[in-house]
């Protein structure tokens, strides 16, 4: 059930091509329960509960500063690296609490990969960028295996054809869009189960953006994807479910076509029709 159909979103005044959802009822890969995140006295995320369904793309939309990125960074505990951040509530990955003492944050970050807003390849070769996670986690036993995993990851990120002849060349010589796909390849190389994408296309031109979105469709059959975006058209194009966050609180979470055609909350409607944000 992966056929192409046309979605019409009159509220967005846009018509976008998309794929239909699978008919099987979705199961949750990650279950967020009452997540609250504070920076000192400021509440960035306020009692948010929502599921991330397996092999589907969930989008989080909302105006700048609504806590989208903070929420996303909570799911692989990247907020731990920022001093002064306090997290409450539960995040269950395959029914295991990621904040439990038994949870190894290193293993968590291997299972929950991340792509950042600005492409951030290391100033190393393309090969070494993709191999980084495999090397530090000791995931490969031989040179041949490493070569193979690097190639797989680059292929999965649709970068192999462009990169295969210059694997030893610097990653910084790639274009912005290629750099972002390299970062996706780097994240995929360690074979995560979930992929967190923090406005992955906001620094890219339309052609590169289209490539990233195309890539997300092919990736979702193997991964559970969460994308944060301030671009509503993008959310409408790529996602199966959409959550709308406003000042840290969850306003609405539902099927993407439904959220963009018949939003259940007047604030959602106001936002997607461009009355604020």
């Amino acid at each position, binding site marked *: 059930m992966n056929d192409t159909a046309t979605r019409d979103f009159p509220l967005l005044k846009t018509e976008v091509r998309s794929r239909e959802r699978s008919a099987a009822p979705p199961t949750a890969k990650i279950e967020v329960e009452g997540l609250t995140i504070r920076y000192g006295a400021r509440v960035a995320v306020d009692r948010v509960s929502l599921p991330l369904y397996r092999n589907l793309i969930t989008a989080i939309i909302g105006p700048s500063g609504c806590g989208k990125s903070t929420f996303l960074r909570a799911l*692989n505990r990247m907020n731990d690296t920022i001093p002064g951040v306090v997290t409450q509530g539960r995040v269950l990955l395959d029914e295991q609490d990621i904040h439990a003492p038994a949870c190894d944050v290193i293993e968590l970050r*291997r299972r929950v*990969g991340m792509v950042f807003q600005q492409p951030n390849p290391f100033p190393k070769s393309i090969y070494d960028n993709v191999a*980084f996670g495999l090397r530090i986690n000791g995931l490969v036993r031989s040179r041949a295996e490493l070569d193979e995993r690097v190639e797989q990851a680059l292929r999965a990120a649709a970068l192999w054809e462009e990169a295969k002849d210059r694997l030893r060349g*610097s990653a910084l*010589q790639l274009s912005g869009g290629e750099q972002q796909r390299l970062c996706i390849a780097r994240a995929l190389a360690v074979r995560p189960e979930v992929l967190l994408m923090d406005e992955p296309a906001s620094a890219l031109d339309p052609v590169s953006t289209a490539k990233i979105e195309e890539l997300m469709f092919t990736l979702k059959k193997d991964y559970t994807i969460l994308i944060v975006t301030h671009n509503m058209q993008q959310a409408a194009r790529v996602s199966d479910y959409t959550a709308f966050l406003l000042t840290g609180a969850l306003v609405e979470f539902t099927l993407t076509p439904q959220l963009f055609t018949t939003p259940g909350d007047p604030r959602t409607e106001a936002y997607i029709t461009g009355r604020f944000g």
Partner: protein
Amino acid sequence: MIHRLAARLADRTLWALTALAVLVIVAMLAVVLGNIVWHGWERLTWEFLTAAPRVGMTEGGIFPAIFGTVLLVLLMTVFVVPLGVCVAVYFSEYADRDSWLYRWSRQAVNNLAGVPSIVFGLFGLGFFVQFVGRGIDTAVYSGRLTYGQPALIWAALTMAVLTLPVVIVSVEEALRAVPQSYRDASYALGATRAQTVFRVVLPNAFSGVLTGGILAVSRGAGEVAPILFVGAAYFLPHLPTRLNDQFMELGYHIYVLSTQSPDVEATKPLLYTTVFVLLALTFLLNLTAFALRARLRVAAGSGR
């Protein structure tokens, strides 16, 4: 109209005064350098660089002093760079900025940079020679005087303490220049903090480590006061070969030539040339640091 003229005059005067200040500085440097190069150049021969002093330092060369200086700063580098990098990594990557440990140790480093160098000399004598050296003699050499006396190793350690702030500041600056996004990328791939430091942060701060080392060397090569009591010798017939040997050193040699010579007029040309060599050496080191930095910056820009 008069107002305009006055403003114009003030403007011109200020311009003239600032330009004059610059001229004075340049002139002073030119006089110092010119004087040394003029008088130092003529005696600069291959023999001068490769021979030992003779006839009460009125003849011969300064090879033992050059050799001693190089040995001293190399040994110093071995001590100061790893220690300085460790402290800088702690400050930049590990320390909680609000903790008392960070604030106190940061203050300690700042104060260390402000201590007069002669105090380091006395510290070296009291701590390294008398305390550590004597301690080793008592424990290992059954009291026979071996390390409990002025020696190359104590001078190098004293010099390392003196140059520690230079290395720390330089390395820390380079560590802070490494973009946070590299660290984020590393953590997000499941790297530990140590892996992030060793595989991402430090390699990207390599030019800073190198610069710190070279700046420390160039500072160390020019210091005399710290080694007065801990190992520099007036004259030695042999080159130092062991860690507990004494050594001759360029800066100290200049001091000796200018104050202890039996024949001032005969020593003068040698003195000039020695100063010239020391200046050239420090200048070259600084130039190397500068060039390495520039080259690494270019390499980092193109991604190599």
